[in-house]
């Protein structure tokens, strides 16, 4: 090696240490950037060419082999699937929270309260069939009950509609993120063809994938050139620079579903979209169905008994208390209303079980006893109150389960994020130490060049005299 070769060692050292300093600077600068992955400067010594006596050849200096992103693909995958699950349960929890707010139990404005008042009114009427005020009170309680039931049902409808709107916006988000990922794939592939790479593009890609995982559960396949293929629910979303848009479709009996560009449904298992689909397809309509079932039985039972009774001090009979259900499209809970005859005249309430008996409240008593009526051929053997209470309880259990699941997944996610941060996060102290090291190495390399220069000066000045 010539003496000028010694200069080369110094030059390489200066450049490598500078690069190291730059990477540390980048790390410190992005210490708080979301999605940023810590980078590490990998240096290696340059091997000397083969000479006669290798032991005499110290090598030819240092070179920066690579700047790598320090991350774990395993944790990232875990992170993605946990994110999907957490979002799914979060959405469900919110759904049930909304439903709870609608039913307003066990506060004083819920259906249970009005149901109790209603039954109590029949009791009261049975003991005071002559009093017009008791009849009016009963009628008002009945109207309150019907209005409350209608209101609850209506608000469930509203909630379903709101969630459907949200769903269609979120499906657009899925497509937007797919587009982003496809663009990033294209850029990465392009840089890759130039034998280059951009750690920042990979960070963006990971970020987009995480965002997508919040919405739908996905499978990510990494290609050798750093691009990804993304599947969701068995359908391809992104491949190379192409994204495949999904849309909302009507799955008939299954309700709404998300379908691929070819019209095939995505078999979603988690994610926000799945949570919303469950809410609009099953959970909320399920509550509505229960309510309908309850009201249908209530109306049928009441009318059956009421029709047997007689209006106040007359022989009028066969009067319906509630408007009879015609089962024509309108849900029972929405058609739930007090009959016109009762609205017009409280004396049409059939408290008596014989005609022309103003003091007879026997039929009213029979009706009041519907409260505890249990029959195996209706409401699964439960009384009306019991059935409603069981319905509220099971709604509460669902909400509670969802809340627990959210908690569990949040915890897991936290741990995974911590592991991820532990590996890929920037530790400023560490970077400071690195910078001190690079500074010292750079100083030493400069000093080395100084010495080599002095050595060369000796040759030029002393020998030439």
């Amino acid at each position, binding site marked *: 090696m010539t003496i000028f070769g010694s200069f080369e060692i110094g030059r390489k050292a200066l450049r490598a240490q500078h690069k190291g300093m730059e990477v540390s600077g980048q790390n410190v600068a992005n210490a708080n950037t979301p999605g940023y992955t810590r980078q590490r400067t990998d240096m290696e010594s340059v091997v000397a060419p083969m000479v006669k006596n290798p032991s005499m050849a110290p090598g030819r200096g240092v070179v920066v082999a690579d700047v790598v992103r320090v991350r774990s693909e395993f944790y990232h995958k875990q992170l993605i699937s946990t994110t999907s699950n957490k979002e799914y349960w979060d959405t469900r929890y919110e759904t049930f929270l909304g439903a709870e707010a609608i039913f307003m139990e066990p506060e004083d404005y819920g259906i249970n309260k009005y149901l109790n008042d209603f039954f109590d009114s029949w*009791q009261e009427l*049975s003991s005071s069939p002559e009093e017009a005020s008791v009849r009016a009170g009963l009628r008002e309680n009945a109207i309150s009950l019907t209005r409350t039931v209608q209101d609850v049902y209506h608000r469930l409808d509203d909630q379903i509609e709101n969630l459907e709107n949200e769903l269609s916006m979120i499906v657009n988000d899925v497509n937007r993120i797919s587009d982003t990922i496809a663009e990033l794939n294209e850029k990465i592939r392009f840089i890759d063809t130039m034998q280059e790479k951009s750690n920042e593009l990979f960070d963006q890609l990971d970020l987009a994938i995480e965002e997508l995982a919040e919405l739908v559960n996905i499978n990510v396949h990494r290609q050798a050139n750093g691009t990804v293929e993304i599947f969701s629910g068995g359908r391809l979303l992104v491949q190379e620079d192409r994204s495949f848009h999904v849309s909302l479709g009507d799955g008939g009996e299954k309700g709404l579903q998300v379908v691929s560009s070819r019209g095939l449904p995505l078999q979603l298992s988690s994610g926000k979209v799945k949570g919303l689909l469950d809410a609009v397809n099953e959970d909320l309509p399920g509550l509505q169905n229960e309510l309908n079932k309850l009201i249908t039985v209530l109306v049928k039972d009441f009318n059956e008994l009421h029709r047997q009774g007689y209006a106040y001090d007359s022989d009028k009979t066969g009067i319906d208390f509630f408007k009879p259900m015609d089962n024509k499209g309108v849900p029972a809970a929405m058609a739930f209303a007090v009959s016109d005859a009762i609205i017009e005249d409280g004396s049409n309430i059939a408290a008596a079980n014989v005609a022309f008996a103003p*003091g007879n409240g026997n039929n009213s*008593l029979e009706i009041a006893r519907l409260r505890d009526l249990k029959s195996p051929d209706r409401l699964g053997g439960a009384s009306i109150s019991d059935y409603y209470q069981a319905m*509220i309880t099971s709604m509460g259990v669902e*909400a509670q389960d969802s809340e627990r699941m959210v908690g569990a997944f949040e915890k897991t996610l936290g741990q995974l994020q911590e592991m991820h941060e532990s590996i890929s996060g*920037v530790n*400023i102290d560490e970077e400071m130490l690195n910078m001190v090291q690079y500074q010292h190495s750079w100083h030493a390399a400069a000093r080395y060049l100084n010495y080599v220069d002095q050595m060369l000066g000796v040759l030029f000045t002393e020998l030439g005299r």
Partner: protein
Amino acid sequence: MRITHRMIANTVNFNLQSSLRRLEVYSNQLSTGKAFHKPSQNPVGVGRVMSYSASIDRNEQYRMNMNQSKGWLENSEDSLQNGLDVMQRIRELAIYGANESLTAEDRRAIAPEVVEFIDHLIGVANTESNGLYIFGGHQTAKEPFVRHNVYGIKEHYLEQSHQGYAAYDAGELQEGTANREIGLEFVVDGEKHSVTALSGGADTDVTFDNIKNAVEGHAKLGQYFSVDGNEDNMIISRITPGDFTIEAVTAEAGTVIENLDEDTPVDVLSADQNIESLSGISPNSFLAGEYHILTEDTDAAYAVDTATRHYQYSQSGDNLVSSVEATTASHNQSVSFVVTGVDEEENEITFSYQYKEMDPGDGTIAADTGTFTVDLDNTEPFAIDIGENTYELTFNDDGEFTAGDRLVINTNAAIDNNADLVHLYRDGDTPSFFTYAFEDGTLNAGTYSFEFFSLDQDSGALLESSMDLTWGTGAFETGDDPDTPAAGFLIEQLGKGGTYADRVEKISTEGLQNGTYRFEETSYTAEDDFESDIKVGQQYLQGSVASILTGSAAPDQVQLSANNNDRNASILLEVRSVDYDTGLVRYEYTSHEYEMDGTHHRESGTFTLTLGGAPTQAVNIGNIAVDVDGLDNLLASDARGLEVGDRAVVDIRPAMNDGATYQRANISGEYRGGSSETRFIFNEDALQGSETDLRFFSLETFRRSPEHGRVYDGSITADDDTLELLRLPQNQEFKYDRSGFPVYYGDSEDRIQEISPHQEVIMNLHGEKAFGEYQDVFEAVYDVYWALIDNDREALGGEALGKMDRAIDDLLENISQVGARSNRVEAMESTLFNENIHLREVRSNIEDIDIALVITEFMMQENAYRAALSTANMMMQPSLVDYMR
């Protein structure tokens, strides 16, 4: 593990978040006091809280029910206690009245005090609680006990005043000519009015119209007025055209003045003295209805007279005959001619005739038929012998004759001076349409059978009727005694002994009353078409105020007729609903039916009639097809209108038209206020044999009890025609006037209330339970009253007192029963109260927080939060950067 600063920040953040979340939960719990307020916070807890709240609410409702039950029961108890006190006072009066030393006047003097107590007692029976009548069963909206008197004056009747007409007592007033000046003075609302010129003196006409006009505009129904300056107050009762009833009462409503003294101007208006009873004879057809028989002694020879008594019908509208003359008439006779054929070529017509006649000497009845032919070219009167009479008929040669044209001639035999006449006329009609004349002295004591027939004006159908009249042993006398009417028969009025009257009582079936009954059995042979058309419609309005079905022809009344009926029946009809918009009136009926062989049926049901619709409507009452006539008149302006609750009793006899022999059982009763008679007709076989059990029934309008009527058992021996005395099953004799006796309008329903899910309590005592099924309490009191009035010391110390004691025992039992119920409710109430305390405790355990615990937790959490904050502060501060200069 490698630690980064962001991890520290995240951890700090996470810990602060969870600390805050717990703090929020605790603060929420502390501010509401509840451990949860959403189902998801404790699903099972919420379900249980809802269920417990429902139980608590319901128990509260039960407690309200109990309070009401207690109110009713205590009210009932107080009222009955009150009634008991009164009963004991009356009992004391009865015992005092039984004192031997008292005179009849002394006893009578006690009676008014009893009356006071009766008033009080009825007030007790009509106790109201919160506007509801507690002793009415389920009928709580109207007074359960309403006093009626036999004259139909009833408070609610007075309210629904129709028109202000006046009336007073002494029987029925006929239009006619007064022989004295008649004036009215009456008081309306404290102001006196007088009308002096009702009739201007002797021989002035008194008509209904001028009486009505006089009073109209001044008086209203139910108001008091006095007549002709007399201070006695009169109550205005009612006037309907043709049936003018005047009732005299003292100022105390409902008490009939039985013996008006001679100076009382009411006498001025009594029929026999002032107003000619009968005038003219018009040919009326038979109609269903009540008939009066009026017997009369004439002091003039009664010449043969047919002129005003024939009735003819021709389809062409012409008269068949221009004159009818009976040249000899030794028999009473009714003849009907029917044109059977017309020969226009020969100008001849053929008649068939049938007749019935009666020998005025001995009352023998004969009947026959025949035909004859008339040559119309012969303008001479056509002479014909029919039975014992000979007629001269002048046929109208201008007329057109058609088969079916009819002529009826009713003829009285020519009779010597002082003949006796029997008239038959229908209630409400101008009397009379048929008269039988008898020779003087032939109407001796005994039973006479009168048969009448005539043609129906509209249909031409032959109508027949018969009537039995029994004269007492006193025989007919002309009265020299100035106190007896100038004309009259001695008629035995059952139970009252012989007395003079101007005519026989109405023949009507007024329903069996409590009392002693006589039984009479007669054997009959039915003649052709005998009773083929059943005369029904005997009305019975006792206790009711508006007639719903009557036999008279007044515009607001209808009549019933049964067609081809083969049953005896007594039917109670009651108006259950009236809709004047549609004109629909719904009746409910209950009836006893007896077949001709004595088989008994009980029927009940409803039917609906349309007012103002078809004049005749057919309905089925039990197994009897009935035509109801005159419905088109019911909405006429004069109609009083129907009211729910109006009732009538109709008794029906079967048709007997096959010439067979029948037997008839009559039952006639005696009780204060009139007599009644019910007849039953049976197949001959039915009453054969040594002894036959029969039940006699008539329905009462009084009560609504399930059995409505009363049935009296008795037996007869068919071949023994002596009279038997039937006694009531209870062996009771009711002597008092039913006037003022309270009638129960409630029902016998229990008012049931639920006081816990499996417990019921009866919160009322209905009137029949509280005061006896037959108002025994009142009957006992009335017995005392009448015993006092009748000076019946024995009854006061014995029977009446015994009844009082039984009634008092019953009251005591009722009081203790009500008290026991009240106690039970109270016991239940405390049980329920405890249960609710328990339930609230359990609910509180579930939903309420333990405040101390939560505050402790809250404090601990707050400390943890503070610690986390300061740790973060210490951790985030130092970094290597600070130490590198």
